[in-house]
């Protein structure tokens, strides 16, 4: 297999890091690197949680503490194996993380960090006051680890284990981000409503990344305990928790490499400050926090992406990122759901109503849609068309009324449940993930058609399913004429193609009913004609379409029936010819003659 140059460089760096202790490196630097490795493991978790997922935690140091104290207690007081200590630490950590997640993650994003502050403080006071945990003195005499019969009792030997774990954690995180769960995780920050409309439970993935980050911290704590051979409450306090977050922010919070850059930078800066500041102030004290505090503010103000973009630009110049290799040419098709008989009633909307305070945005609107039909929803601006869409797809909760889809009641269901029934949509204001490629954005639509999870992603046992996802995404993109732009970043596309991308993503969900919100806006004439042809072809395949559109030529030429809305109320329903002939519709759009 031919390796991309970027990957060769990564492997070379990893090997260099691992052989370092065999070289005559001074003991001081081995100690520094050991600590940097331990910090990096924790910072990796925060990259996943904060940088990618848009959540944050100040309590990671407390999870490190759980990992360290679990093994310390089991090995010193019960003489059990350190491996049991690791297991216990991870199990306790997962349990705590699940409780905190269940309590906070259904609410706005800032409750999790507030809860982690309280939890971090509670844990450090507990460690400092419980007799069995040694109070402020902590626990001494933790045994060294043994691996394959070798005792890891000094820094140089421990180095290998610490860095092997750190590099494996980085590899696992990198793999996770490029997978089915990874795409969902990358949608959490800024794309949650879209992800829900693709059938993804964003709550579930928030829990997943919080637990992952906590487990990484606990593993770092386990290594720390067996490296230092003693634990006390100090390194697990809230201040260290904040420092971990700072490492991730300084390094470049969205990137796996940033965790290592940040951990290294913070450790080295801290050492230098502890050397210089006492000279400057004339007294000893924890003055480096002043510099760190000011640095956090400055970094967020002037370089919110941290140090990693600088490294990344350099890499990009010498070793451009390889495109995803197309290896899915022969991948099997994803499973498809059955389609209803043409002419059966598919969507039945009965007096749905939406009130925003005193404003009635949708006023008891009823209509139905049969399988294999294309129905247009038109009306002047502010008629309530997009609100009706949002009610039918569960993006907004309706005030009253009922809606059924293929016999299932969908009124009141969350967006993801409606999506899983086979209703897919596009958005009036395009919602895509600008940092992901076109192909990856579209593959997000196929999420609910696969089942591989986090572990498969980390172990790469998900590749077969991944190939099927990408084959499907490519097929849908080619169908709407975007086959040449698979590897472009979605954020670099003009508005027209971004709308087409949304249609491809909706098609990837294997929909029975497609709701398109102004699909032709921003398209040129030829593109509109091509889009109309695709929609007709979809209709031929038994997919039903409900569309909101302002381009009357497009609507009149394409739809079987049209529902006209004005001021939230249904004005008229009929064939394109009937609607065009109606004086009421003309009055709604153009005003009445006096």
């Amino acid at each position, binding site marked *: 297999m031919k390796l991309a140059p970027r990957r060769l460089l990564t492997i070379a760096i990893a090997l260099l890091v691992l052989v370092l202790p065999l070289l005559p490196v001074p003991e001081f630097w081995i100690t520094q690197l050991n600590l940097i490795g331990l910090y990096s493991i924790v910072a990796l978790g925060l990259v996943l949680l904060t940088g990618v997922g848009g959540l944050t935690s100040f309590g990671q140091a407390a999870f490190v503490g759980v990992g360290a104290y679990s093994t310390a207690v089991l090995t010193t007081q019960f003489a059990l194996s350190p491996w049991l200590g690791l297991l216990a630490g991870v199990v306790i950590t997962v349990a705590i993380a699940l409780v905190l997640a269940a309590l906070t993650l259904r609410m706005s994003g800032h409750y999790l960090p507030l809860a982690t502050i309280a939890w971090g403080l509670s844990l450090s006071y507990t460690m400092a006051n419980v007799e069995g945990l040694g109070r402020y003195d902590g626990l001494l005499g933790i045994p060294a680890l043994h691996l394959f019969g070798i005792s890891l009792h000094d820094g140089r030997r421990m180095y290998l284990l610490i860095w092997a774990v750190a590099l494996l954690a980085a590899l696992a995180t990198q793999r996770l981000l490029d997978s089915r769960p990874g795409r969902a995780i990358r949608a959490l920050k800024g794309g949650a*409503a879209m992800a829900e409309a693709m059938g993804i439970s964003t709550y579930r993935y928030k829990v997943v990344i919080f637990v992952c980050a906590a487990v990484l911290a606990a593993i770092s704590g386990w290594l720390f305990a067996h490296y230092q051979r003693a634990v006390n409450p100090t390194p697990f306090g809230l201040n260290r928790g904040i420092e971990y977050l700072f490492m991730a922010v300084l390094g470049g919070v969205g990137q796996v490499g940033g965790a290592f850059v940040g951990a290294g930078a913070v450790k080295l800066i801290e050492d230098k400050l502890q050397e210089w500041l006492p000279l400057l102030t004339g007294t000893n004290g924890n003055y480096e926090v002043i510099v760190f505090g000011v640095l956090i503010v400055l970094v967020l103000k002037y370089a919110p992406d941290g140090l990693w973009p600088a490294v990344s630009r350099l890499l990009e110049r010498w070793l451009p990122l390889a495109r995803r290799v197309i290896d899915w040419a022969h991948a099997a098709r994803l499973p498809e759901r059955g389609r209803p008989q043409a002419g059966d009633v598919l969507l039945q909307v009965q007096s749905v109503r939406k009130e925003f305070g005193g404003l009635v945005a949708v006023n008891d609107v009823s209509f139905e849609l049969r399988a294999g039909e294309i129905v247009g929803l038109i009306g002047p601006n502010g008629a309530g068309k997009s609100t009706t869409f949002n009610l039918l797809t569960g993006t907004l909760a309706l005030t009253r009324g009922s809606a059924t889809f293929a016999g299932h009641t969908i009124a009141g269901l969350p967006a993801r449940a409606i999506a899983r029934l086979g209703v897919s949509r596009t958005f009036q204001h395009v919602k895509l993930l600008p940092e992901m490629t076109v192909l990856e954005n579209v593959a997000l639509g196929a999420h609910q058609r696969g089942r591989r999870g986090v572990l498969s992603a980390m172990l790469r046992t998900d590749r077969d399913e991944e190939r099927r996802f990408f084959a499907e995404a490519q097929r849908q993109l080619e169908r709407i004429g975007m086959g040449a732009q698979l590897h472009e970043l979605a954020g670099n596309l003009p508005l027209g193609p971004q709308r087409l991308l949304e249609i491809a993503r909706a098609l990837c969900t294997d929909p029975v009913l497609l709701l398109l919100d102004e699909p032709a806006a921003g398209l040129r004439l030829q593109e509109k004609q091509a889009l109309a042809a695709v929609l007709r072809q979809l209709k031929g395949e038994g997919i039903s379409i409900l569309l909101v559109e302002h381009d009357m030529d497009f609507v009149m030429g394409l739809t079987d029936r049209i529902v006209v809305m004005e001021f939230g109320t249904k004005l008229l329903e009929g064939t394109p010819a009937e609607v065009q002939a109606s004086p009421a519709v003309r009055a709604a759009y153009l005003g009445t003659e006096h």
Partner: protein
Amino acid sequence: MDPTIAAILTLDGVGNGAIYALLALATVLLFAVTRVIFIPQGEFVAFGALTFAMLQQGNPVGSLWQRYGDLPGTLWLLALIALIAAAIDATRTWRLGQRRRARREALTTLALPTALVVLCVLSHPRSWPMLAQLLLTLAIVTPLGPLVYRLAYQRLADASVLVLLIVSVGVHFALTGLGLLFFGAEAFRNPPFWDARFSLGPLTLTGQSIIIFGSSAALIVLLWLFFERTLRGKALRATAVNRTGARLMGISPATAGRLSFTMAAFMGALSGLLIGPSTSVYYDSGFLIGLKGFVAAVFAGLASYPLAAVGALGVGIIESFASFSASAFKEVIVFTTILPVLLWRSLRDPHREEE
């Protein structure tokens, strides 16, 4: 536990709770107006208590400024932060070519801190009457609020809540470190303002606790009047409800931010003066005190002023019972109560993604 002890503990708890209520109200106010979750609110408490202590007793051993006179470190901290803010502002305006405006801005920022420094250097505030010292303390600590807003938050006004929260943590780090630099590591305990005692059956009500109840209640009433009856208060409420809308009506978010930070710093400093006689205050004690106000603010969903006040009294009472029955685990118990509070909140208003 007999009812007398319970009554004593409750009274004690309500006393602390009244102080936490001020902090909780300040937290809710800042979040509503600026979306900043202001972790360092407690730092103003410590600064208030320590400034007053230094005016009363002089500088501690180990603080950087003991060599430079007998004045509270906060004075120099204020001068330093004002100088930095003035320098940044002036450079920016100067670059735009508006030299006269640059000079005027710098003078406005520096006027109050300079006046305070001159006043303190020329007179001898340690011999002032207590009331004058209290007012001087408030005058020194309160301007720190808008300066902190100016330096840390103003340019990030449109950032996400998450980014602002991380900035808050950075500000907390910086202020704690500066606190150590300017106040030293020693603890202070202030003398009570009023050492009268009144017996109410088995209970004893101290003059100090009457002052605490009185000032908290007065401040809450003043806040209410401010929000209901004044144009500026209504402007702040408008900003809290809809920032863009308020901006279109000519309310500057920066002015609203500065005003709310001024109020928060004032409330913090006042809390520090109130709590100073009943507990030893170190340079970093403010953090824990502020976080207790925070638990109450979370109870209020960072949104409701009355709920925040109720929550604060609850926190105070839980704390006083916890310190009686398990004193080593007092803080653990207080901070663990945030878990049922969060459970209650998440059941009460399950959240829909805001985008």
